[in-house]
């Protein structure tokens, strides 16, 4: 692992938000990237090989951001100069700690990394993922979080670093906590966040919507939400709702692969193509079928679902791989035309935001 290699894997000229992921080896960094950005099933991450070189996943949807994962074996003291180059060009540093293992070494490593990172880039956000918490009981999780938070902040205080923006998240790839944590990380990096929240607040107030989220369809992280309190079951059901909308759409979508020249070519050999697509099956636990291609252009996709407790889930596809997911009461249904009218304005606002930004 030479300095040149590390140098060569920089973010290049990409000015959009960049996130660097570090941590000791076997902490779970590659698994997180695979599950979130490459649609791998959480159970399949057992078979991932150890990462030997820095890997960058470029994630381009609403905002192009790149996640660079540095292998755990890197000895940082060797390649420090180049590491500073990386830190100075990134917005957030995610440090993954394996909570099921002894984390004292990880904390020492984290401490030295923070020092270097803050020296290179004082505005960097440090995010600590206390990972693999699915194997711990509830009390243990809180204990671990408290312990780690205490130790890290104490050490930083000892060194006189007071203005470090650092947050701690309990995560696991086997449930929605990783998505939620990643959403929070990404939100801090989006310059348009305040505007988006404001737009959502206005939309909710004027349309009788209880809760609205702006989700990224591919990775299911939420970019923004309105100011009403967020609870996790709501977030989870919205992600599941997106999954079924996309799955059902793909089941009945016309095969638009480049080989069939025209857009709607029902006589193309969609038989073979679709079967190859769908032979991965659906893992019943969490995620969904392989989604090799983004939703094709056309009228925006939407879906509605009524639940027995009077809640209505409403999804509308927005620009750039985003989707607006709202929860409303069933009393709003008779006025759904007005809600849709408002949402059109919201969509226009999003389009303008991205034209400018």
């Amino acid at each position: 692992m030479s300095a040149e290699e590390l140098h060569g894997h920089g973010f290049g000229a990409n000015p959009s938000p960049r996130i660097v992921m570090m941590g000791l080896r076997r902490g779970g960094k590659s698994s997180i990237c695979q599950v979130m950005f490459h649609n791998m099933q959480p159970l399949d991450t057992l078979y991932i090989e150890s990462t030997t070189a820095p890997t960058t996943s470029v994630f381009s949807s609403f905002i192009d951001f790149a996640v660079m994962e540095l292998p755990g074996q890197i000895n940082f003291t060797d390649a420090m100069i180049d590491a500073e180059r990386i830190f100075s060009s990134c917005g957030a540093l995610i440090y993954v700690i394996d909570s099921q293992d002894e984390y004292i070494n990880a904390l020492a490593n984290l401490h030295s990394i923070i020092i270097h990172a803050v020296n290179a880039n004082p505005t960097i956000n440090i995010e600590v993922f206390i990972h693999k918490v699915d194997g711990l009981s509830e009390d243990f999780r809180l204990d671990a979080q408290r312990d780690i938070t205490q130790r890290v902040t104490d050490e930083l205080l000892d060194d006189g670093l007071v203005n470090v923006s650092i947050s701690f998240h309990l995560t696991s790839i086997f449930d929605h906590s990783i998505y939620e944590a990643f959403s929070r990380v990404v939100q801090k990096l989006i310059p348009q966040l305040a505007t988006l929240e404001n737009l959502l607040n206005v939309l909710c107030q004027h349309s009788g919507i209880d809760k609205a989220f702006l989700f990224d369809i591919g990775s299911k992280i939420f970019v923004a939400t309105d100011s009403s309190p967020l609870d996790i079951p709501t977030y989870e059901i919205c992600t599941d709702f997106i999954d079924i909308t996309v799955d059902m759409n793909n089941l009945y979508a016309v095969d638009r692969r480049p080989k069939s020249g025209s857009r709607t070519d029902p006589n193309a050999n969609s038989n073979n193509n679709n079967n190859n697509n769908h032979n991965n099956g659906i893992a019943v636990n969490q995620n969904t079928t392989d989604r090799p291609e983004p939703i094709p252009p056309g009228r925006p996709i939407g879906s509605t679902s009524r639940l027995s407790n009077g809640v209505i889930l409403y999804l509308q596809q927005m620009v750039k791989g985003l989707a607006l997911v709202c929860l409303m009461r069933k009393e709003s249904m008779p006025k759904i035309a007005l809600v849709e009218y408002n949402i059109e304005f919201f969509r226009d606002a999003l389009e303008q935001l991205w034209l400018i930004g």
Partner: protein
Amino acid sequence: MAGARRKLLLMGRSGSGKSSMRSIIFSNYSAFDTRRLGATIDVEHSHLRFLGNMTLNLWDCGGQDAYMDHYFSTQRDNIFRMVEALIFVFDVESKELRKDIETFVLCLRNLYEFSPSSKIFALVHKMDLVILEKRQDVYRALMKSLEDTSAMFSFQVQGFATTIWDESLYKAWSSIVCSLIPNVALFQKHLQTFADISEADEVILFEKTTFLVISHVTNPRSPGFRSDSTRFEKISNIIKQYKQSCSKLRAQFQSLSIRGTDSTSYLDTMTSNTMIMVIMSHKPDIRGSSNLPGGNDINGDGDESLADEAENNIILANIKIARKMFEKIEMMNPDDR
């Protein structure tokens, strides 16, 4: 007369996957959750109401050798009498295939004696453990010997390759349960009428709790993109997962409508035991360019959303009207023909 009771025997060697299957289909377990299940002690009875007037009496028989010996000796009478269907599960990785088939033959022999008119189903399970290219061959090889043995007792065996990790499980169980519904042809006929009148591309009738497909109708003139032959099972699987997520919010979903790029699907309650899914493809010629009279069309598809709304209401109205007919079919005495 009370509703029909159909007795189903679920048998197979120990560890073949019988209880896991049962929990997934009938008890809303996810595939991941089934690892918690332990060995079944003797016979576990479940009574499952299906379609209102039919009760499935599922006998999940523990597969340990000790229990199996009992079934074929002291409990023969009890187990094999009045059976409507035998579902025998073969573990594709079994090292004692010979013994499995022998057990199967013993079951057939007893059934021949006590319930000669029962249906026979063989599930070749845990197919996910076989590599993709070999699956067809492995399945065919096993089925050949099973077909031969069943023929000895003049039974016709129907086979399925299944795994809990994809939708094949739903296909197998849908077929099994449907073969037991006495008036399934009537459902099919009325569903066809419904589909013709609604000009739908596809109409599927699901049972509400298990989401097994009772009947489906496809319009032959619909666009050729309906080529995925496993789509029904996939829909069962997808909707079942959605059901489970909704239960996290302590609610159940009542209806679902998804407007996709090429078609719109509507899922709504039909009767108290069934749900119906109607799939209409988007017809490009109807989406005309006429503007709303006197209106401000913000983004040019105001007329499209009007047409959507109209279609939505029409489908829902059709479902409402059809409901009575379907309720009547369900309530019909199952032993009338």
